[in-house]
């Protein structure tokens, strides 16, 4: 099996004493502790304003209700630039320039796409999708 680790470290002086939290997890297939996620799609795109785009398409039964993970980073540098992340047209949140997110994604039905729309200007996005498998679409 492949072993992929995801570490999150959060440091903050918002609290006294200061917060220093760190967590590492191994990206496993759903319901197992011995079989890691073995597939990854990764990319870099520029997202123009004006259209809500599908970033990741949920139309894949192999990953339905699994332990898939999605990483998205907004590489833009202008602090007023952001993208809105939606799933099946439900707004999840805004990812501003310099922000990243790491979420589980159940892709529970064919409509549960992860969608992205840019605001203020063309946003630069890096993404990675860790999953169990996918079927290729016939040409």
């Amino acid at each position, binding site marked *: 099996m492949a072993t992929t680790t995801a570490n999150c470290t959060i440091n903050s002086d918002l609290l006294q004493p200061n917060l220093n939290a760190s967590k590492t997890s191994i990206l496993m297939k759903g319901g197992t502790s011995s079989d890691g996620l073995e597939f990854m799609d990764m990319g870099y795109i520029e997202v123009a304003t004006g259209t809500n785009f599908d970033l990741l398409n949920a139309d894949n039964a192999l990953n339905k209700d699994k332990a898939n993970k999605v990483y998205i980073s907004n590489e833009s540098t202008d602090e007023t630039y952001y993208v809105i992340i939606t799933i099946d047209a439900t707004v999840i949140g805004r990812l501003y320039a310099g922000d990243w997110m790491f979420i*589980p994604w159940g892709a529970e039905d064919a409509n549960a796409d992860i969608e992205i729309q840019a605001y203020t200007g063309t946003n630069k996005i890096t993404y990675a999708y860790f999953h169990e498998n996918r079927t290729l679409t016939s040409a």
Partner: protein
Amino acid sequence: MATTTATITLASTDLLSDELNLTSSATLTAADTSTGITNTSGLSRKTVTGGHGQYTLFDGSDYTADKAHKLYLKNISTTAAEFFLITVNSEDIGRLYAGDWALIPWSAHDNDCDIKIDPSANDMTLEYMLFVD
């Protein structure tokens, strides 16, 4: 100004034929500015003791809409099959299995955009922290 940084490292030596080692660090700031986020719920734990029912973790109407809130979640269960189903406004995001964590941007887009958790078993515990814009 308070400074909060969140750093992620994704690493693998055998997922690809070449080593994966991706690191990204973000300073959590308020929407449209470079001013650091100034409020947080603090690091908390919630044990859902009442069976498999869905529980509202954060109510969308309690937070300013369309901001740059961030939510950290961690399932501290050690039983591999146990997961929390995370939803926003009744839309499934995904399953957070034992040992997994997530950092989710949350804009509290409207009053219905509650963040809810649904444990797959009794007596599961979630660790969480909301950074509030």
